[in-house]
């Protein structure tokens, strides 16, 4: 279920790729061997990458639980961790060295959160017992749709450098700690962290992306390349009954893969 957005994204890219390929077949035949760098006769460039996404900065959740008829402060410091990245892009030549493109990225990482909570005493008001622990296995999934203005800079006959930038829509799925499970024994002067209750929340936000793509033609239509992109957006993760949590999405994305030019 969770990979469905990824499949959808790549299906979209595949359809675009096929359409572009069909269009390319109508173009005049070109000589064998690599075409000159730059857009040249190609009007469509496709790229698929696999790589890593370095997560955006960590974020902190400050919320209040209701335990034993009293407010129980909860703080969770969510860390950052690199995750796998899959990326597909489509670029269309517009004029000269400029073009327009769209890219879709999918990244997934498993984070840990440092949990600190004050658990009220069950018998008296105003006596909080600190509990600390780590909530692990917090899954974070990001699907980015990046609209891009492209500028293709030929380096030589085989190597191109593509500069890109534009707005991004980042869709984030994040596991948040929404409750703390603790153990205690009479007289309940202390409590011990046992586990955290997780809730998966989803939210989209608009941000931006800038990137560089270096491609090397192996043949006239096929090449390999590497890309680096930085994308970022600020999302407000909704938590039922609590203030939303502000977190950054995106980060540095780096990948390498196949390049097709039609």
């Amino acid at each position, binding site marked *: 279920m969770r990979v469905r957005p990824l499949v959808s994204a790549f299906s979209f890219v595949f359809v675009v790729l096929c359409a572009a390929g069909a269009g390319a077949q109508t173009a005049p035949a070109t000589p064998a061997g690599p075409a000159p760098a730059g857009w040249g006769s190609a009007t469509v460039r496709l790229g698929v990458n696999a790589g890593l996404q370095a997560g955006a900065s960590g974020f902190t959740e400050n919320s209040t639980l209701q335990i*034993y*008829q009293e407010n129980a402060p909860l703080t969770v410091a969510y860390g950052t961790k690199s995750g796998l990245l899959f990326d597909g892009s489509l670029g269309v030549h517009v004029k000269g060295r400029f073009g327009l493109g769209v890219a879709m990225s999918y990244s997934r990482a498993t984070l840990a959160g440092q949990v600190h909570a004050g658990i009220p005493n*069950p018998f*008296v*008001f105003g006596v909080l017992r600190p509990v600390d622990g780590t909530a692990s296995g917090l899954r974070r999934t990001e699907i980015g749709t990046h609209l891009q203005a492209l500028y293709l800079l030929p380096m030589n006959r085989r190597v191109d450098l593509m500069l890109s930038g534009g707005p991004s829509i980042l869709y984030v799925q994040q596991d948040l700690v929404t409750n703390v499970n603790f153990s205690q024994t009479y*007289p*309940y002067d202390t409590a011990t962290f046992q586990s955290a209750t997780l809730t998966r929340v989803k939210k989209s936000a608009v941000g931006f992306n800038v990137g560089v793509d270096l491609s090397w033609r192996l043949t006239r239509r096929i090449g390999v390349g590497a890309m680096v992109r930085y994308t970022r957006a600020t999302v407000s993760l909704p938590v039922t009954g609590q203030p939303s949590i502000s977190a950054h999405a995106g980060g540095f994305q780096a990948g390498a893969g196949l390049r097709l030019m039609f």
Partner: protein
Amino acid sequence: MKWRALALLTAIVALSGARPSAQPPSPLAQSMDVASTPRSLAGWDARVHAMLTDGQLNISRIQRDSMLAGRVHERLNQTYKGLPVFGGQLVRQLDGRTLVSVFGRFFPNISVSTQPAITAGAAAQDAVTAQGPDAVASGTPVLGILPTRGGGGYVLTYRIQVRSPTDIQLYYVNATTGAVVQHASQVIHDTASPSVGIGTGVLGDQEKMSVDQSGSTYQAVDLLRPAPEYTLTFNGSVSRFNDFFTTGQASLSDVATSSSNTWTDGAVVDAHAYQGFVYDYYYKVMGRQGLDDANHQVISIVHPLARADLARFSPDIIANYVNNAEYLGSGYVMYGDGDGTHFTYLSGALDVVGHELTHGVTDYTSQLVEQDESGALAEAFSDIMGTAIEFYFRPEGTGPGKADWVIGEGVTLSPPGYIRSLADPEANGYPDHYSLLRDIGTNVDNGGVHENSTIVSHAFYLAVHGGTDRVSGITVQGVGDANIQEIAKIFYRAFTFMLGPDSQFIDARNATLQAATDLYGAGSSQYTQVQQAWNAVGVQ
């Protein structure tokens, strides 16, 4: 003459007690000297051992010492030809196999026939008849030897509990003639006087309640503490009230409930929350697990009679079950609603709840007889612990919700606004010196058990807070209110481990000094303050 006039031990430890302030150091004081001198204790050790061997003493209970590792306290009941001698009990403290102290009362020179002329059933009927209509005998009569009050000797009697719609009495019926020798109520009332204060009632603060959720209903059953604790309400039902006293049975249908977990009945809220506080205090401070140190259940009963029905009740009923709280035995406590003029709901005062439940602790330890000096000790111990509990949970200050040196300030509506004062007993007409002891041997307040209690509780106050006794003029520095639990531990240790059913004030003095020695050393400040406090109130 009192029971204590017959209470003699050997030349080494003679536990008879003359009025302390009017006599030279009592034999009991000598016993305390002996207790602090291992060489002298050795003789007493051998004597107890001999009495255990020949059957004059039987070990009835061994209590672990929750305050000092390795110590145990053995309660040795006196018997005569296999029958119990009512009130005869020694308590010896052992450190491993070494005797540390001995307290208690032993009745010598018993010479009576142990063959009853009437059956237990006939004796029970005599007791029921004496109690009046609607009374019933409860439990099994116990045949034993009763040292008579007044020093007349010993009588073979049946001890019989008799329940009536408004009381629980303990009767001693002569096993030869069937005559009632003596009887007394087992219901331990708190406030002996309808005096008077001003308060805001029980609804002024919020408390947490440990309850049981059953479906969509919440029940006042504490499931978080080791001891089962329930709060019941009779909702002012006279028939339920009478039925309870007659049968001694409470029903789960009486458990207070609420359709939401927001409780609005203040009497229920405070009774339930405060009985939990009392358990917590004894556990955390004294290392005690409930009334019997084995997590005995506690059942609080509120709204026993309704204010709206006051016109139907006699003054005695109003005094005892409306304007009063009482420990009923076996973990049952009853809190009156108050008449709204002199008192409001009595469960609203933490020190009152602590007082009543401490009667339960006494019931499972020293079993101080609720009569004369021993009864005054029981009442004093309850006031002392009630105050110590209040200091443990509340900030020091004045008025309801604060820790102070008066009892029941939150529930007393008429002047002076409290029931008894430990700091200034005389301000409310209570004695603050042993020379003012009153009503001993009378039926007034069971021999002045509440009135005279302030002599002892005032000593506790002086040992903690410091001050000058009004009568003696002796000034005690005190350890300071911040250290109240140090002195509370001394009194707890003495009253629960060392005193027996017929202990007198002088016994309490000596036992507390022994406890101070055990806990802090004979040269400690705590020992000195306790000693000076007893001196100040004339118990020496």
